[in-house]
């Protein structure tokens, strides 16, 4: 079997919630030993929130190990409990950092200070460390101590102001959106670049990812449009400046979908040709030459009527059928999928094996997101399911820190390994 790219690399993962652990997940998947430092005295809230696995009678399982939210981002990692509010806990944390290649945290600067985890401190014990900090606003500056998570960042960075329908309040996008790809993905990219630099020069470095900067970066068009043109972009619904029709259109309800049976299909026509194909697919070739819709400019000028027309077509079809009908004619179209679709129905994701299924001692068999890219020769793996809280405390203390069983017993009694 081919060696994985990060065999021999160790990550001291002092992060929590979504963005930090997802960044570290990539290293675990591709062979690194990722040690998650946790504590029941400052529990990762994701361990305590829904969705929980169910008991056979339908009630929720309880405890720190049954949240699908937490588990999904932590497969193949080690969990060690260290109480960093104790001096001894901090000292043990340093001994893990000393033997690691990468340090990662997304705690606030205030907590980093309290636990003595500043870069100039940890580089003393490990000058080659690549230390990545991903605070909300940055390590410096007037808003350094501002609090938040993805759902706060969504309005602060402009996503809320620019997403959704005109006339609706800036309600955001229903999730902590930046926590899942934008911030962890940028963090991982920076660490990988720093690893390459270290391989060349032997030098470690400090990486700072102010989450606000990382997110505004991907909204750059709107910001640069303001700087260049003074234009303040705002919510434009589902429309596009380069395609019409462009949106989500209502289809026949589907009683097989749990929760809400409404069904939608996304359609976007970037050219007159794609619009003609769409009209023909629905048996309405005359609409392609209707002067209201014949050109891109006329479709944009009559977009309300255009959308009403397309809705009247889709409303009598199953969403899956509209997708197939249009895709057979090479028109971009896709079902607005629920998770039920993605896990149980989507034949494509299934064949590509995107979701990974792992047997977890408390949740039972559960699905995990696979990596967001597939490598042909070193595909990576979820070596084991998410760790139970403190599952590897003994292992890490003995093998990495080098403590004896007696020392470990004493530290447990002193409340350091909790």
């Amino acid at each position, binding site marked *: 079997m081919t060696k994985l790219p990060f065999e021999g690399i160790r990550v001291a993962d002092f992060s929590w919630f979504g963005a930090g652990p997802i960044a570290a997940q990539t290293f675990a998947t591709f062979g690194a030993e990722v040690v998650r430092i946790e504590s029941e005295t400052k529990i990762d809230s994701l361990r305590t929130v829904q969705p929980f696995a169910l008991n056979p009678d339908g009630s929720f399982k309880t405890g720190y190990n049954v949240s699908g939210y937490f588990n999904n981002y932590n497969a193949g990692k080690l969990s060690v409990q260290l109480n960093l509010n104790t001096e001894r806990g901090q000292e043990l944390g340093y001994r893990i950092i000393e033997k690691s290649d990468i340090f990662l945290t997304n705690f606030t600067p205030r907590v980093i200070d309290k636990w003595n985890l500043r870069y100039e401190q940890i580089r003393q014990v490990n000058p080659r460390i690549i230390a990545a900090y991903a605070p909300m606003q940055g390590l410096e500056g007037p808003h350094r101590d501002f609090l938040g998570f993805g759902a706060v960042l969504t309005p602060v960075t402009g996503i809320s102001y620019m997403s959704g329908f005109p006339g*609706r*309040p800036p309600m955001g996008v229903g*999730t902590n959106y930046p926590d899942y790809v934008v911030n962890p993905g940028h963090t991982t990219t920076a660490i990988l670049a720093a690893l390459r630099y270290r391989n060349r020069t032997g030098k470690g470095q400090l990486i700072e990812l102010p989450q606000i900067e990382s997110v505004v970066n991907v909204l750059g068009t709107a910001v640069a449009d303001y700087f260049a043109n003074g234009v303040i972009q705002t919510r434009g619904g589902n429309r596009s400046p380069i395609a019409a029709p462009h949106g989500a259109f209502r289809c026949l309800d589907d009683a097989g979908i749990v929760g809400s049976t409404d069904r939608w299909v996304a359609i976007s026509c970037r050219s007159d040709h794609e619009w003609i194909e769409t009209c023909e697919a629905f048996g309405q070739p005359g609409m392609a030459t209707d002067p209201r819709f014949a050109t891109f400019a006329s479709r944009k000028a009559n977009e309300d009527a255009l959308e009403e027309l397309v809705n009247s077509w889709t409303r009598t079809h199953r969403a899956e059928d509209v997708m197939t009908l249009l895709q057979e004619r090479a028109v971009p179209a896709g079902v607005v999928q629920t998770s039920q679709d993605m896990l149980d129905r989507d034949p494509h994701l299934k064949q590509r094996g995107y979701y990974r299924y792992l047997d977890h001692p408390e949740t039972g068999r559960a699905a995990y997101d696979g990596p967001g890219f597939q490598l042909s020769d070193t595909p990576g793996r979820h070596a084991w399911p998410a760790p139970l809280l403190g599952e590897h405390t003994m292992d890490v203390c003995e093998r990495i820190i080098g403590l004896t069983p007696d020392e470990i017993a004493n530290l447990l009694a002193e409340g350091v390994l909790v």
Partner: protein
Amino acid sequence: MTDRALEGLRVVEFTDELGSYCGRLLADLGADVVKVEPPGGGVQRHTPPFVKGLDAGPDTSIAFWVHNTSKKSVVLDLDTDEGQAIARQLILSADVVIEDNPPGWMRQRGLDYHALRPARPKLVYTSVTGFGHNGPHANYAYTDIVGQAMGGVMTLAGEMADPPNLIYGNQANVSASIQAAEGTLVAVLHADATGHGQHVDVSAQEAISISQETAMQTWDLQKRNRVRTGERGMIPIALPGVGVYEVIDGHVVLFVLAPGGADFPEFVDWIREEGKAEDLDQEPYAEVCANLKMSWLSQVMADPAKAGPILPALMHIQEVVKRFLAGKTAAEAYEEGQRRRLLVGIVSTPKDLAGNSQLRARNWFKNLEFDFLNRVIEFPGTPYRLSETPARISRPPRLGEHTGAVLSALHGQED
């Protein structure tokens, strides 16, 4: 001159909307990125907004610019034998290819991974497409909205009364590009160590799908679908201190009941200090305000006898909160709320971002000199700060700006 993290990494890209941001990330980190473009430029070169007062064209698209900084541009017609031959030479002198054409497109031109690997075993070849290079939907036509739909994020965004919402900024494309940058660099590190390159296959549908948050696990563990709930996200009912509030000049968003900040009684302290607490210190409101936390609420709501009187009290408290915030500007509510460690976010407009005091204090925006327009335009900075090898932005190239220089360097190599 500081060191660059990706110094010496040679990248050739054949990308448009899907993959160009991947190339930008590598280019800002110091890789030498040559963008091969068709005559006239691709879709992104012709996507608005354009710089006002100038001809809308390949060299004035802001949408293109923000995904193509720090690169070189070479125009080649890949439908000609000559164009294909030059592209092949470029690739064979590179470490990395990034391309975002439909599966099969590069193969038809003799430029796919399998055609090139024998001559360049160390090559990392990254393909960014809507659905990846294998599977029953591999050849599906793709645009960003199709990726957001099929990737499961649209169904979570918006109000039930509206169609599912698109997230601004081509986020399926951006997600695919970010995952592609990660996958490319993992493969580059592996190639550095072993001499073996590989194919990196990125599907935009898969790339964005982890952004479903807990929806995937909710179906997997509980056989329930999360639906779109407007401003409330995962919180089941409208509650004071959670959601979008109108202020004098816009909106703010509060998550006071979420973990991670000060609690509701501290929010009431602020309201009281400004003399806007009305009757919140009287019963039944005082007790509700004192206890208002998600854990307390879920206990109370489980018992219909207790929940009955609480609901009208919550609605009243909500009205008091609305009146309090309606008298503030967005900046006041944000700055003072955060000073009090309350989870308050400002709904920033692009103009607010341009003036954001944190971004300004950190000198995040960069002045880019567009010499060919005789203009300096401010630009959003890079996503990260690397102490030894800072990412740096230089202006995006004009269409074909480096064709002559890159091709003569290539001929020089041959000689």
